[in-house]
């Protein structure tokens, strides 16, 4: 019998027991949808992590100042400033593997423009922050030397701040108030989007170090050139470990501490992100494995229904054999039926997966990427399940004796 005729026969057979066919397909539908959704979420998370590592500037350490222990009670991180701009210069000069070390201070302040107000994170920086964290300017310019040395009243704003305060209008040259200090906007940063923790990375304002130190109040500074953290970029990823050791030694020496309780802390951000990503990948892998089990269970359901179908249609098989169907014809007929069930189920599962990932992206803020090879793989895999689990029932049908099949009640 020709292939298209077999497909037509299979299609009619599936329609005859429509409800049963749909219920049978349900296992495959759920299995395929679950596998695709899990893999899409996994790929999405991986994509975000890659993006974030890229945004972080790749090979970056952050050195935090830690509250010095005084009479047993330690203040919050950064409450007493032990790191200084000189430490940044020392790291840059004495550790050749370091490409840039950017000192930063941060504070929170209310920012007002016209009748709009917003509370972004305020960072005191110099121009080294741009290479250290891979910031690009969308508009305007970096800080000038004069602005940096004289606590100039200027600011470079993040994309979120621009959107919230200015909307569509041009912010360059406009004056905003940061707490009580009026400052002029000289630049806008290019957007980076959310990080994996879901924090908006564009909700910030850059101002010169001295401006934040002197004009944005509320900081206890141990030294006039104290900073809260250093962002240290290493030229070559392979030197990370070496740089960490040298930096530790250098800073201890500069601060004259030897004990276990150093007044600073070195963190490797991309490592943190990667650890998180690895955990997520393991989690997603587990979910995908569970989803595959449901695909397997769906396959067993197909086998079960195909066996029922063969038994129910024994007389039909007998008749087909009597009028000239060879065992191979019968075998193909039932195999195609099982494959059709599975491929239909796989296609429906794919559609559901697309719908679910779209709505997860839209309403829950997930990033999900359905890779084309995953689609091909899952549809192909479900057809394969059809062949695998359809084989036994089909073989059983083809090996019936025509005379027994015809007499079957």
């Amino acid at each position, binding site marked *: 019998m020709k292939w298209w005729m077999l497909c037509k026969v299979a299609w*009619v057979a599936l329609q*005859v027991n429509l409800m049963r066919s749909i219920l049978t397909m349900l296992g495959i539908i759920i299995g395929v949808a679950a596998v695709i959704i899990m893999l899409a979420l996994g790929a999405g998370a991986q994509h975000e992590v890659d993006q974030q590592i890229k945004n972080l500037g790749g090979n970056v350490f952050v050195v935090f100042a830690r509250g010095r222990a005084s009479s047993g009670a330690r203040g919050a991180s950064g409450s007493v400033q032990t790191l200084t701009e000189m430490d940044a210069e020392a790291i840059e000069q004495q550790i050749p593997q370091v490409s840039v070390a950017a000192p930063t201070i941060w504070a929170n302040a209310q920012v007002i423009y016209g009748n709009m107000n917003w509370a972004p994170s305020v960072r005191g920086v110099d121009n080294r922050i741009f290479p250290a964290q891979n910031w690009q300017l969308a508009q305007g310019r970096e800080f000038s030397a004069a602005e940096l040395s004289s606590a100039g009243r200027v600011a470079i704003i993040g994309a979120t701040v621009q959107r919230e305060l200015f909307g569509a209008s041009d912010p360059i040259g406009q004056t905003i108030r940061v707490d009580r200090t009026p400052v002029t906007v000289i630049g806008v940063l290019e957007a980076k989007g959310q990080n994996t923790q879901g924090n908006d990375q564009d909700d910030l304002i850059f101002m010169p170090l001295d401006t934040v130190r002197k004009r944005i109040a509320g900081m206890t500074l141990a030294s006039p050139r104290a900073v809260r953290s250093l962002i240290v970029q290493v030229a070559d990823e392979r030197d990370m470990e070496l740089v960490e050791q040298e930096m530790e030694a250098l800073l201890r020496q500069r601060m004259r501490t030897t004990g276990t309780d150093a007044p600073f802390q070195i963190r490797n951000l991309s490592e943190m992100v990667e650890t998180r990503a690895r955990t997520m990948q393991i989690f997603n892998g587990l979910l995908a494995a569970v989803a595959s089990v449901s695909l397997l269970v769906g396959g067993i359901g197909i086998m079960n229904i195909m066996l029922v179908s063969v038994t129910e249609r024994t007389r039909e098989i007998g008749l087909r054999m009597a*009028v000239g169907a*060879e065992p191979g014809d019968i075998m193909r007929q039932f195999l195609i039926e099982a494959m059709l069930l599975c491929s239909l189920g796989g296609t429906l599962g794919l559609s559901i997966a697309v719908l679910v990932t779209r709505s997860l992206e839209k309403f829950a803020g997930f990033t999900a990427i359905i890779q084309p090879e995953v689609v091909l793989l899952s549809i192909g895999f479900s057809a394969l399940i059809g062949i695998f689990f359809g084989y036994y029932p089909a073989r059983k049908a083809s090996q019936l*004796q025509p005379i027994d099949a015809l007499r079957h009640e």
Partner: protein
Amino acid sequence: MSLPVIESLGLTKTYRMGSQQVQALAGVDVHIQQGEFIAVMGPSGSGKSTFMNMLGCLDSPSSGEIRIQGENVTHLSAAELARIRNRYIGFVFQQFNLLPRTTALDNVLLPLLYRKDHDGNQDFATECLRRVGLEQRMDHHPSQLSGGQQQRVAIARALVNQPAVVLADEPTGALDTETGLEIMQLFQQLNQEGKTIVLVTHEPEVAAFASRQLIFRDGRLQSDKQVKAESASEHLARYRTQKQQEGLA
């Protein structure tokens, strides 16, 4: 005498039922010529059904031979037997065995679909349906047809592959008297057109329409005689008149 269309030589069949051996057929020789109309009779368990199954290549003998147009088909594989059935045998069953939810035309086309060299031409299938008087109902499903019409579709299906012999197993068993007579009338007409027909029945009234009667008993051929066939058309006419008179009375 010309070459028989189909013949059995020393045909035996032994079944094993538990520890007991049951001999369903014990050496049967039958030669069937082109154009014969044969009734196979006998009580149940006489071996007539086993004999028919072997003529139809649905079952294989324990020993002896089946020859179709001189060719021994006894030791062929399942696939080869399927091709033989497809080429040389047309089946009509007591329960019609039509595919449900499939039109009359598609049911008739079924044997052709299993033929590798078939080009999808439906003309002859249409012609067969016309021959059994159902050209108006080609697109009807079996559930939309009466029992007699369903059996006619089955007969058209048995004719579509232009078989050497039509095997009918109790074709009137599931039909009322009048419809049964109509079906027998159709068989007689087909026979007059040259079709070879072998019919299994346990009703002597049905067997009377054949021109040769084989009677089986205990796995052996008890008698094989030529008889003068009665006319199904006359019986049908008589039956209808009688029924009409009963209706008036």
